[in-house]
């Protein structure tokens, strides 16, 4: 067994030797070498389950990352393909008895690969535009969303779909287009405070996201209503911005850290104890700001304080006194675990508890409920084939429950499942937890 020599001067903030990566914050040698190769993660990995290939398993990917760190392998196309097929769902991390920080290592290695192989050509330009020029600027995202809204509402979308034009273009644009979420009629603009109903008056701050603001604006409004009805004064800090999760997953760590600092500043202006978020992927990222900025002496402590305040909507509601509901609603609900709630945040029970508090809700479990639906951030755009395989399985399992509604706490899952249900002409609805709670508790 060989272990890489620490590069001179590359000590992590806590003085531990780090691997020989060129990025500013390489993982420690101890973290990189923690895997004992027991293999207990393999059956939990969706891509291993599908391919039965060690190269597409968490243990295999860890071994490759370590080999990169030790200089035994270069970041070749083949190497990168195995990292790219990883959903970053972190089911392996939840299953690992050794406590290997898979998500952390995968994100760092992707950043290292991006540093060694900057995107070039069309992909480079597109990546630059999306990650640096679009997501960090809410007004530009709104502009793009407005254009998409015109496309969707003017009849152009129907025309394009009917023409089959996109199928003739390269790059599977038709599939990407089919996954395009319906842009909201009115965007969500965080501003001011929404006052609590009732006597509790617990101050909370709401994190509105970026895609959520333009494509799930109603869900954001529902979230605020649910919190207000549960007794919260909901602060909506204006200067908040995209969380940076998509950036981290794509290896754009430094941009992600800039976004994190902006959000920390924005929410420091609120005295609320909790920062409530209604998107699993964002929530997992916000809770990791402390780790992202651990090497940044000026920000480490502030980031840790920020992360400790973050609560998923289901966590928040489960911890608040149950509110009065408007009678029984009699509906069979399947709850879809978002990977970044179940595996990254280890939140399993709270959303189920919150749903079961509602009289008339009967909760059913689906087969392989802990397996990723294939949405995984922008995975269904970067790895459409695997995303579709996993999406099809998920929709089959969802349908087999015979539920009326499938509820999830993440926009990506909803987009993926809705697309699958639509393809099959299913009448089942896929609804965000916030929308479901809002409808069930509205007077």
């Amino acid at each position, binding site marked *: *067994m060989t*272990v890489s020599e620490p590069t001179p001067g590359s000590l992590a903030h806590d003085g531990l030797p780090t691997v020989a990566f060129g990025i500013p914050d390489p993982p420690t*040698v*101890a973290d990189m*070498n*923690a*895997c*004992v*190769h*027991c*293999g*207990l*993660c*393999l*059956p939990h990995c969706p891509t291993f389950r599908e391919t*039965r*290939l*060690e*190269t597409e*398993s968490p*243990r*295999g990917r860890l*071994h*490759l990352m370590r*080999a990169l760190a030790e200089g*035994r*392998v*270069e970041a*070749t196309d*083949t*190497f990168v393909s*195995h990292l790219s097929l990883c959903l970053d769902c972190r089911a392996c991390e939840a299953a*690992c*008895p*050794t*406590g290997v920080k898979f998500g952390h290592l995968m994100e760092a290695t992707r950043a290292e690969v991006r540093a060694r192989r900057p995107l070039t050509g069309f992909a480079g330009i597109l990546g630059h535009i999306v990650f640096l020029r679009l997501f960090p600027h809410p007004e530009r995202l709104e502009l793009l969303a407005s254009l998409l809204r015109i496309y969707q509402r003017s009849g152009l979308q129907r025309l394009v779909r009917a023409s089959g034009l996109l199928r003739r273009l390269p790059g599977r644009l038709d599939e990407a287009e089919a996954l395009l979420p319906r842009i909201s009629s009115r965007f969500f603009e965080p501003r001011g405070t929404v006052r609590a109903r009732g006597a509790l008056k617990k101050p909370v701050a709401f994190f509105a996201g970026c895609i959520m603001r333009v494509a799930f604006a109603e869900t954001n409004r529902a979230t605020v209503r649910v919190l207000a009805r549960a007794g919260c004064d909901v602060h909506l800090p204006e200067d908040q911005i995209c969380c940076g999760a998509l950036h981290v997953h794509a290896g754009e760590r430094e941009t992600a850290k800039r976004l994190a600092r902006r959000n920390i500043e924005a929410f420091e202006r609120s005295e609320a104890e909790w920062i409530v978020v209604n998107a699993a992927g964002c929530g997992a990222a916000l809770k990791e700001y402390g780790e992202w900025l651990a090497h940044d002496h000026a920000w480490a402590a502030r980031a840790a304080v920020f992360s400790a305040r973050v609560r998923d909507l289901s966590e928040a509601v489960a911890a608040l006194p149950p509110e009065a509901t408007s009678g029984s609603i009699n509906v069979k609900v399947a709850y879809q675990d978002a990977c970044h709630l179940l595996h990254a945040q280890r939140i399993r029970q709270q959303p189920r508890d919150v749903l079961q508090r509602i009289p008339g809700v009967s909760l059913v479990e689906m087969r392989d409920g802990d397996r990723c639906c294939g949405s995984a951030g922008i995975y269904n755009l970067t790895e459409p084939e695997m995303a579709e395989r996993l999406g099809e399985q998920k929709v089959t399992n969802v349908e087999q429950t015979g539920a009326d509604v499938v509820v999830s706490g993440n926009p990506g899952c909803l987009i993926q499942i809705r697309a699958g249900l639509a393809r099959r002409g299913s009448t089942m609805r896929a609804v965000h937890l916030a929308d479901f709670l809002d409808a069930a508790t509205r007077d």
Partner: protein
Amino acid sequence: MASGHASAESGARAGLPARVVGELRAILGPDAVLDRYEDLLVYEYDAYMDRSLPQVVVRPTSGEQVAAVVRVAARERLAITARGGASGLSGGVIPIEGGIMIDLNRMHRILEVDVENGLALVEPGLINLDLSTAVAPLGLYYAPDPSSQKTSTIGGNIAENAGGPHCLSHGMTTNHVVGLELVTRDGLLCTPGGPAPDAPGYDLVGLAVGSEGTFGVVTRAWVRLLTLPPETVTFLAPYDSIEAAGQAVSALVANGVTPAALELIDEPAIRALEEAFQIGYPPGAGAVLLIDVDGLHEAVEEQAALVGRICQETRGSLGLQYAATEAERAKLWAARKGALAACGRVAPNYYLCDGTVPRSRLADVLGTVHRIAERYGVRVLTVAHIGDGNIHPMIMFDINEPGILPRVEAAHDELVEACVDAGGTITGEHGVGLEKRKYMPLIFTPEDLEVMALVRAAFNSTGLFNPGKVLPEPGTVPQRVAIPVGVSAAVGPETWV
């Protein structure tokens, strides 16, 4: 190596001729042959410490394909290593002579279930637990339950004659395999045994189970399925010291009690498991016993009462806890079965001992384990299938510490010797593999080893099936006959093991 840069990489072997790779692709299909360096890298390991790259990985879907691959290997004098979950702890699937790795993970179907006779015909890449999960709705399960059962395959379990906590009452893998499809010699596909009861003739199935891939490649297996026990009671019995826990086991044995499972976890291992699984083990326990009693309701009631009484009457008992719900039971067992990896939290590396000891000597040997650890200045965590005397002391270390490896190896040697001296043996269930070849002469005479080599040669006529495993290295044991085994045998037939 096909990729251009590979020759510069450490550990890379010379690639196979394009002609051979092309022939394998013709047999298996283009996607079922891996020969890029980056892909081969992840086939260089199992859960043991050594590493070695195969020259090519093939992914067959049938016994016929495996036989065709073996014929190519025999003609080209290439080593053949079959691989399942690669969770083995003795280096059984590390291809130390390179050659062709046969990855059986695509062969994971359950081909037939005979409910009335409690049998199933399965492919070797099927994950152990997937079989039990699939037949559970029929009220059946597959009894051998190695701690790796979530990830290890039936084929790998057969190769290693895997045990597990519940093998105490039900026996090891060999007691649950009744028939095989085996590719052996230079590509001969044979089908010893089968579903018919009481197979006459030589027990080739019995010989092949536990042969660690040195007799050939299992491509199908008939296995027994048992009826799920109607009731199971799970206890956790804490003691103030490991010796007290050992005494409790002796008392159970003396009273003629055989629980379905009887496991021991010592204090340092308890701490690691607590961190990984948050079980809520009783604070201050020096060791705990985890005990399953199963069967029909009346029998379970009676036996559980007896086990409970004996456990609590043993000096040093800190009480008794029952798993009240199925979820609690599952959690206790999940922690035990994740013990090995959980101990990875304590130190980056471990060396795991798999010795067995007669149950009457357990308390002594557990004491010896601690004395050995102290003498070598290493930390040892112990879990044990204590009911059948199979102990797993784990020596925890950091391979980066200068001079640590020889100390760890010496401590491990002494642990193994302590087991053998007490009347036990060198391995309970993890196989000999690469790791324990050197201990074989501790328990076998040169004559024993010679007969083993002759039996192996009857199957492994080319010497190419999993070379370098099980039998001791050449020159370490006196030998009278020359039996070619391994790729090097093509050069000189003098070496036999």
